[in-house]
């Protein structure tokens, strides 16, 4: 294994940025591994959670932000609940996803597109319009067959309306999005 280069190991600002944005003290992590032990998605991760925490401490910005694990995280917060040092690990994962988007390092593009399709639909209708969201997702990714096998069952149960169903006062939801964009 090649030795890591010094600049990659010592991006001290990166740790600071993550700590500031997540309001968490990452130096508290002592590598007990409880986050990895409890994570239901560890099997799919390219980098286990506890190793991500260590890489954050070491300032390995590029490797962390281009990992697939941060996009596979389901935000179930088991890691947060179990952490003996009271680090909100799930919140850090969320911060890392934001940073990866800004840096253009998203390793799991379909996950990102699903989030975007979901939010676009919510902004437009005040709640999610499933068929519209899926159409948007397919348009973004070209993955036509993703979960297509579930459609007949969902249709049969009336869970997949063909027309949008808006909420009352959907402008209020839109104002939330507008406020977010102003602050961003």
């Amino acid at each position: 294994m090649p030795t890591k280069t010094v600049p990659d190991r010592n991006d001290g600002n990166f740790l600071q940025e993550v700590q500031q944005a997540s309001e968490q003290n990452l130096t508290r992590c002592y590598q007990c591994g409880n986050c990895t032990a409890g994570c239901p998605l560890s099997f799919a991760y390219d980098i286990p959670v506890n190793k991500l925490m260590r890489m954050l401490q070491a300032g390995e910005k590029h490797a962390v932000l281009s990992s697939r694990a941060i996009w596979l995280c389901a935000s179930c917060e088991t890691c947060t609940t179990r952490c003996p040092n009271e680090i909100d690990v799930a919140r850090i994962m969320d911060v890392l996803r934001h940073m990866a988007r800004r840096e253009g390092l998203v390793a799991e593009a379909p996950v990102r597109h699903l989030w975007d399709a979901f939010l676009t639909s919510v902004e437009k209708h005040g709640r999610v319009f499933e068929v519209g969201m899926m159409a948007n997702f397919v348009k973004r990714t070209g993955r036509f067959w993703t979960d297509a096998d579930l459609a007949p069952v969902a249709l049969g149960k009336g869970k997949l309306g063909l027309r949008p169903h808006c909420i009352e006062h959907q402008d209020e939801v839109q104002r939330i999005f507008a406020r977010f964009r102003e602050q961003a």
Partner: protein
Amino acid sequence: MNIGVFVCHCGSNIAGTVDTEQVAQAARSFPEVAFATDTMYACSEPGQAGIIDAIREYGLDGVVVASCTPRMHEATFRKTIGRAGLNTYLFEMANIREHVSWIGKDKEANTNKAIDLVQIAVEKLRRNTALFSSEFEINKRVMVIGGGVAGIQAALDCADGGLEVVLVERESTIGGKMAKLDKTFPTVDCSSCILGPRMVDIAQHPNITLHAMAEVESVDGFVGNFDVKVRKKATYVDWEACTGCGQCMEKCPSRKAEDRFNEHVGTTTAINIPFPQAIPKKAVIDPGACIMLTKGKCGACAKLCPTQAIRFEQEDTVVQEQVGAIIAATGYDLFDFTLYGEYGGGRYPDVVTSMQYERMLSASGPTGGHLVRPSDGKEPKDIVFIQCVGSRDHSVNRPYCSGFCCMYTAKQTILTKDHIPDSQSYVFYMDIRSPGKLYDEFTRRAMEEYGAKYIRGRVSTIQPRNGRYVVKGADTLMGSPVEIEADLVVLAVGAEASRGAGALAEKLRISYDGYGFFMEGHPKLKPVETNTAGVYLAGSCQGPKDIPSSVAQGSAAASKVQALFSRDKLASDPQVSSVALQRCVGCAKCASTCPFGAIEMTEFRGMPKASVVETVCQGCGVCAVTCPQGAIQLQHFTDNQILAEVNALCPY
């Protein structure tokens, strides 16, 4: 008064952020200051010599040292000026380190504050008077609170040194936690074989009085003359008559009493002797489980007892003990693991604590030394040990390392292999803490010779599955989650302060930390002393400790008591209250507020007057603020001195 002011640099501790030379210069302009200088280390030998030289050269009769906290060096400098022939109370200290240089970086502001503090000290010193100690007799008996291994060691060392010892134990037998252990690390020698003889020594020593089933109720008095009330709880058995034969236990029909000695692995009889080597070996009735005491009928034990020792009508008694010193050796309690819901929170029968496991390993324990699953009595094959349960965990307010769990877990894996040769132990650990003679070799032996599989990571959850338990943890060295199916899970629970430690500390007037452990006098230099003269510490009441350290502290505390008692008389602190007779109107308010009972009402020419018993007065000053006439004053802290300090700081 000719006052000398010495401003200490304390290396760069003070001089780094305070202009000490400027402070000395400013001090020269204060009233009655005849000499002022700055000095590198006032407490060093040349520093002290400089003070003595200046006293002689400039005819100083009062000294101010501006340096660190008086807790550190007030006694040092008092001795210094004493050597130069001054009364030791013509001395004041200005704390310009803890109160100034260590807490601020602005050099100008720091210097100004240091000048203010020196001025306050000078103004107080101008009003100081020479004070003289008197002497008082000391009672050379010592009380040891807690009969665990630390208390036993302290008691035996004191008693062997010729002192009379009173040992107070909360349970019905001494022995503490060590008596519950099967074997001890790193030698794997039998715990009761090495502790048992010491316990017998306690029982047989002519200098030791043992009060078991007893707790300290109140502590009055002061070093050399403590007056302790001890509540002896009702045992419902006349211990003078009880021979410890154990026949009562065999016939007692109530078998639902909680078994504290066996860590609640099963239950026991309502009349009980906890274990065969108990000292004193006397029966005790649990009033909550006894049929006679709850329902008014039964009395099987009373009918059977060959010496008629049963006394259902017995009540608590309070005995008074006069002692000159007290050693607190109250030990620790185990962390309550039910706070961890992910480990079952106490709902899984085969998830046990390390101490319960220890009782199961012991031949005198509830399973007769056979390792079995509590749920079905079967022999376990795969045993998982989880370390740091209630240690190094912020989320349960136990961020400290309990220190001994790594070692006892290694010991338990070795014993497990000895008991069940075809078993496999797994240990989830975070770091192995084994600093000590032969300690690291011991943990390596558990892995290398006994085949315990150590996995570096914490356990996230334990889930029951088909009568076994799936332990889900991480192997951080592999970087992957791991799952192990176990028949039995042992939680290495950490140590926490003994229940009731805080209440005892308040009775003893000693301080305790945020976790309830007693505070030592100094973290390095006074490990067994406290800030209350005559009260000493031994063992885990000061912080988690293994057996060798607890024994060492027991001996250390005993040697401190021996040193204290090597004198026949002690010098009293003259910083006590005194009454100005012409002002006292005899209202007796001071006598009623004094927390130490140090004020007596006397008669002077037919008028009632307050009078202070100097050896009892602790110098707290409550009387001084109570007196409507200002007649009673705390010497060295009179109203005039305090007002002069305030005036120095707020001249306008």
